[in-house]
């Protein structure tokens, strides 16, 4: 009995560790995004370079976490909710890693943009970063608190991001038509916006998986069904 309780406590701790690692990765991506935004606004090349460097950390964490999850699956053979949690964690860590890559991409674009004069004050991009950060945070909060309501909020915010992205696209299009010399800069800005939009999609996927984890029902690709 004593032995059993011990192992179950150990098991609980391992599950919590997975949860914590996910949160840590989430916090890292959030920080990378925020720093990216600051680097863009302040034209800070040093900060942007740091983001690109730190992406390695996320990649390593992703690999380590996936290994840990698989080990846990093999050794403990979890069932029901725990099984859903661990499989979900494996997928979420992949998404977070992708988000990290995108943040690094954005930072690279910021580095390039720094070499050009600013064509207009950045308003939409920082706003998008703020919303996307919130989405990542909320999707992981949903995971921690097993709160489906938060997942719903993330889905709603994704549509906002899509709208801003479209609006920015139109705006940049007019800039490009007005002055062909601005095309290069506008394209880079467009790429940043696109990356942010894709990060939002990843955050939404995480939120959907949390719904699956809590309820056992899949809500992904609802629009297709």
């Amino acid at each position: 009995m004593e032995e059993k309780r011990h192992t179950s406590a150990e098991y609980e701790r391992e599950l919590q560790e997975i949860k914590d690692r996910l949160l840590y990765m989430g916090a890292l991506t959030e920080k990378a995004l925020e720093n990216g935004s600051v680097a863009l606004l302040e034209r800070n090349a040093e900060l942007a370079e740091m983001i690109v460097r730190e992406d390695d950390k996320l990649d390593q964490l992703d690999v380590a976490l996936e290994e840990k999850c698989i080990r846990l699956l093999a050794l403990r053979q979890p069932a029901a909710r725990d099984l859903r949690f661990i499989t979900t964690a494996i997928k979420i860590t992949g998404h977070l890693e992708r988000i990290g890559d995108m943040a690094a991409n954005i930072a690279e674009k910021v580095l390039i943009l720094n070499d050009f004069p600013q064509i207009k004050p950045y308003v939409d991009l920082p706003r998008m970063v703020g919303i996307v950060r919130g989405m990542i945070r909320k999707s992981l909060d949903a995971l921690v608190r097993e709160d489906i309501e938060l997942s719903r909020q993330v889905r709603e915010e994704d549509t906002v991001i899509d709208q801003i992205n479209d609006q920015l696209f139109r705006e940049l299009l007019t800039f490009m038509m007005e002055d062909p010399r601005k095309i290069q800069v506008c394209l880079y800005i467009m790429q940043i916006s696109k990356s942010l939009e894709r990060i939002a999609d990843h955050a939404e996927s995480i939120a959907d998986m949390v719904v699956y984890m809590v309820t056992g029902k899949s809500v992904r690709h609802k629009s297709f069904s």
Partner: protein
Amino acid sequence: MKIRLFYKLFIAFAAIGFLTTLITEFLIERHLRSGLVRQVEMEMISEADIIALMPMEKIMEQGVALSERTRSRLTLIDFTGRVIKDSESHAADLDNHLNRPEIQQARLKGKGSSSRYSQSLQAEMFYVAVLIGDQKQPKGYIRLSRSLQEVNNSISALRKSIMQGLFLVVFLSLLIALLFSFGMISPIRKLAAFTEKIRTGKISGQIRIQSRDEIGKLADNINEMVEVLYEKIRKADEEKRKLEAVFAGMSEGVAVLDTEDRIESVNRGMEELTGQTAANMTGMTILEAFRNVELHDLLERFRKTETIVCREILLGEDRPVTMDVTISGMRGETSNGRKTILVFHDMTRLKMLERIRTDFVANVTHEIRTPLTAILGFVETLEQGAVDDKSKTLEFLQIIRDNALRLNRLVDDLLILSGIEMGEIGLHPERVTPVEALERVLLLVEARISEKKLKILNEINEKTSAIRADKDRLVQILINILDNAIKFTPFGGEIAVSASPGAEGFLIIRITDTGVGIPKGEIPRLGERFYRVDKTRSREMGGTGLGLSIVKHLMKAHGGWIGIDSTLGHGTTVSLHFPIFRDSELCMLQGTIEENRIAP
């Protein structure tokens, strides 16, 4: 306490009494029986001896009579064992008696005895036999037999009385057990009730037990123990309360992590810093509660190094605040049970002060250098030959003079400001009617108002209640505010001055313009020295950037305050809250005036 002490004592006493009585009975019965039997034997032998002295014929004749005399059955047996005469049955019916044990003994020793159960009489019988004649020529045997019924009877009588005694023993032991148990149990019960009360935490008074035996000693010990315990609990309670008060009262946020690294408790300061409730945070890990990379890394570093770590961390999403976080360990009772304490110190205010100070130094040097550069530049130009051109020289000198004046204004303002801030400028509060102060001010700015074709709407008149203020300073305040209004109101705009009673005992003087307005976010920073909303523009207009700062401090020195409300593009309203002058204050005020006059 299923088997009560009483039953235990009772059973013990009863068992002792019972066993003693039984053993006694057994011993007495055995001795009594053997004694009685021996007596019967001796009696019967002597009777048989007497009968044996008689001639055989006589015995034959008088056998029955003899038998009656001796209360025994008499049997005459010849030396071959054949029964010659029997007092109770026909001799012919009886078999040969020679091998009976008593006859055998008598044949060898002269007399013999034995006891056995007689089948013919259905009773335990005692037999004695005596040899007639001598051993060489035995003539026969006299045998007497008697029932042992008498002996048995007397023994059973004895048994009966002992049985009665046994009942008495049981009854007595019951009584004794009752007495003993009551004597012993009542103090023990008292002790039990007392200790029960202590167990539930109601420590009060002492227990009183009269007896001087072990129980009395035990009661004394318990009393002493309770006293010591009570003192210790009281001290611990006091200590706990003290710590709780410190924990709750400190402005720093404190979070305690349990051995599983989950938040065990947070204090009020922590709730205020994070905006989350304690109930919400407890049970979470640090990552769950804060989602902060730096904080997590700091905690990891603490785990690795096991020494106190400290770092400035930016916490929060929308409005990040700088926190000075210190992590230290708390040694638990067990070696693995180590708790962690996180202390969050809000550095926002300190950071802000630091920023204001560095801004100030940067601004001051900048403000001084701008006119100085102009002065130096034009002086150099003059030196390099421009001095020969008279019109140019006058123009340049004018510019140099303007810049020197600006420097002078700046230094003046700075001196005033530091003077007010350090409390060195004495105020002479007196009864002032706003209208007289305003008239003085309007006189001073008249030229500039008409220059910009501004419309002044003055609602302040003689009826406006008097306020308590230093007249010169009031003029200074109003000039500063009106100056700003004029500066930032476009050509042909409107400036309204009005007054209305404000909070209890205060008059609000409002100066409203239709100027450019101030962005909402900038309003809190307006009082900072050299703070400018639009940096280039206001400098062009010749301001030092110190005006509002001076007003703010002067209002504070007057016991009032300044409020600014603005809509970007539509205009700004400045509200000056002055204490209303009361007639009853007159005497008191004169006292302060005197004092203020004495002060340098």
